[in-house]
């Protein structure tokens, strides 16, 4: 099987998974008994929205989704809208578009999590590798601590850190990404303000991530240390530094894919951490959308999470096909 065939087979597979997920994304919110728009509009009515606005929203939605049409036609409408980059219109913040709301929140989520994931990954792998090589008390201590933090739910640490460092010792700001009343702009005082609000959510993410990565790297390195090729290399008298290089190359493989997958799952990974810190990212947007029964926004966000995760999985699979000699060999063997 050639490389092109391998990649296209994977692509086809992930497109299939994406299709199933998109169908679920379309179908599940429509399981709500009765016309979803009825339910939503009556909820809005109870919330005090004016009658005229309600009628407008109602008509807008019936027309947009073609709710008087059969389900399969609605599905096609939904897909056509998606491909035109139209995620729909928010119920609770009418007439804001879902795409616009997500575009507002996404940069905050990425700016918070991408650095946290990369820093946590680096520190975690170093700790894990050192623990595996050193052994002894350092290993025991580092391993148990890492295991503890990797089993701890992210939001638990977030809540505890928030209380300790922002309330009990009022050292860092307790909520948001910038001070209340400040307008986002590219100026030094605003950047300093943002940075001060950054540390708490950042560290609560990094610590948990370090734990998981250290545990993974340590077990991978120990596993490689005891494997046959290491014994063999020792037997034929290869230098230690060379063996260490082999071990690292093998132990790093799953870690690198772990990094890519973590970046893919990034948006969904810290939904709750953002909620705890009222950080204006995707998590916070989802939280208020759920509380206000703003289904188009919920659907838009779940679709975004899906695309990110599936894309990362696909890229990792393809990269594995290139990097991992075992898969390469298997592929060439099949030819």
């Amino acid at each position, binding site marked *: 099987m050639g490389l092109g065939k391998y990649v296209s087979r994977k692509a086809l597979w992930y497109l299939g998974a994406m299709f199933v*997920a998109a169908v679920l994304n379309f179908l599940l919110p429509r399981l709500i008994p009765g016309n979803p728009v009825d339910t939503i509009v009556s909820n809005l009515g109870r919330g005090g929205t004016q009658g005229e606005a309600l009628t407008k929203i109602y008509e807008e939605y019936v027309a947009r989704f073609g709710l008087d049409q059969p389900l399969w036609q609605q599905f096609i409408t939904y897909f056509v809208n998606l491909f035109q980059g139209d995620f729909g219109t928010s119920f609770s913040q009418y007439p804001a578009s879902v795409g616009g709301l997500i575009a507002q929140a996404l940069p905050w989520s990425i700016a918070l999590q991408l650095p946290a994931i990369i820093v946590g990954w680096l520190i975690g792998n170093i700790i894990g590798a050192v623990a595996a090589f050193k052994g002894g008390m350092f290993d025991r201590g580092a391993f148990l601590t890492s295991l503890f933090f990797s089993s701890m739910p992210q939001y638990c640490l977030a809540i505890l850190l928030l209380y300790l460092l922002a309330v009990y010792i009022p050292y860092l700001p307790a909520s948001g990404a910038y001070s209340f009343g400040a307008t986002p702009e590219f100026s030094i005082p605003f950047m300093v303000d943002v940075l001060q609000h950054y540390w708490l959510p950042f560290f609560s993410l990094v610590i948990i991530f370090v734990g998981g990565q250290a545990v993974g790297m340590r077990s991978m390195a120990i596993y490689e240390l005891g494997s046959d090729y290491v014994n063999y290399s020792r037997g034929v008298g290869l230098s230690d530094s060379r063996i260490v290089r082999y071990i690292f190359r093998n132990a790093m493989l799953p870690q690198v894919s*772990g990094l890519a997958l973590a970046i893919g799952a990034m948006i969904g990974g810290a939904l709750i951490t953002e909620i705890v810190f009222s950080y204006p990212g995707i998590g916070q947007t989802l939280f208020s959308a759920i509380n206000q029964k703003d289904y188009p926004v919920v659907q838009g966000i779940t679709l975004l999470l899906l695309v990110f995760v599936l894309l990362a999985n696909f890229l990792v699979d393809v990269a*594995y096909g290139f990097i991992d000699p075992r898969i390469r060999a*298997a592929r060439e063997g099949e030819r």
Partner: protein
Amino acid sequence: MKLVHFTPRFYISATITVLVVAFAILGPLVFGGDPNASVGGQYDPPSGAAWLGTDNFGHSVFTNLMYGTRTSLVVGLLAGTFASILGTVIGLISGYKGGILQNALMGATNVVIAIPAIVILILLAVALQSRSVLVMAIVIAVTSWTWMARSVDAQASSLRAREHLDVAKLSGASTTSILIVDVLPYVFSYICMAFVLQVSGAILAEAGLSLIGLGPNNSVSLGIMLNWAIVGEAVRSAAWWAFVPPTLLLTVLAFALLMLQSSLDEVFNPRLRRGTARARVTAGATVTPTGAAITPAGGADLAADGGQPTDFERQGADR
């Protein structure tokens, strides 16, 4: 010679787990109290009347904690049981039957694995207007059986060529009886360990869903307590008694269950106890619940193993 070697880690984690379960079962019987009764104002500090103070509704945090732990454990156990049964049945049938059936079942499993669980959880929870404890458990189970089905499938396929299965087939045993009598026992130790992971994963999934406001209706769970604490600004009001107890309980429970699973792994897997190095690998192997002990059959499986860290990352995402 002792038959079973339990490590101190096993006894410690088992004790913690038993204590938490006892608190949830016996607590309400011993101390009584109604979680919905108002016993004071908003965020009263701990006192003789309410040992852990009151929450934003004036309910006793201690009473809520007992009933909340109970709900969380019930959801966790139910969801863990459902997911384990689903994963075992699908994995056994697929691994034992092989062929087209295996391709179809594992293909479907891989599709579900690729879709992030948190998305399905949110969509299902949003779609279901009334969510009972049972419905929550089913929703969580529907998203978490996959990695277990894949591991059981791998183990069952490796058993397929064993001679005792041929003997059973020749003696006219039905497929069901072969699966239960001749295949299941070989996989059972793995199922026990996976079950513990399923339960802890389900408890955390419930807590996460409840925290974002999609928990079971008309009841209190650890996640719902945290949801109240966040909506009611307990943290910024310095009302530590309203959020520290459920936070610590969740953390301790998750850690204890993970340790329990890894020490069970050492008991069931004699290969992993021979040297310290081996034992260490075991402890790490708990992180990827896809069953590190199974050697992938070929290149295709290795490629699929790219998804192995996914399960872990996804569990992380649920938190």
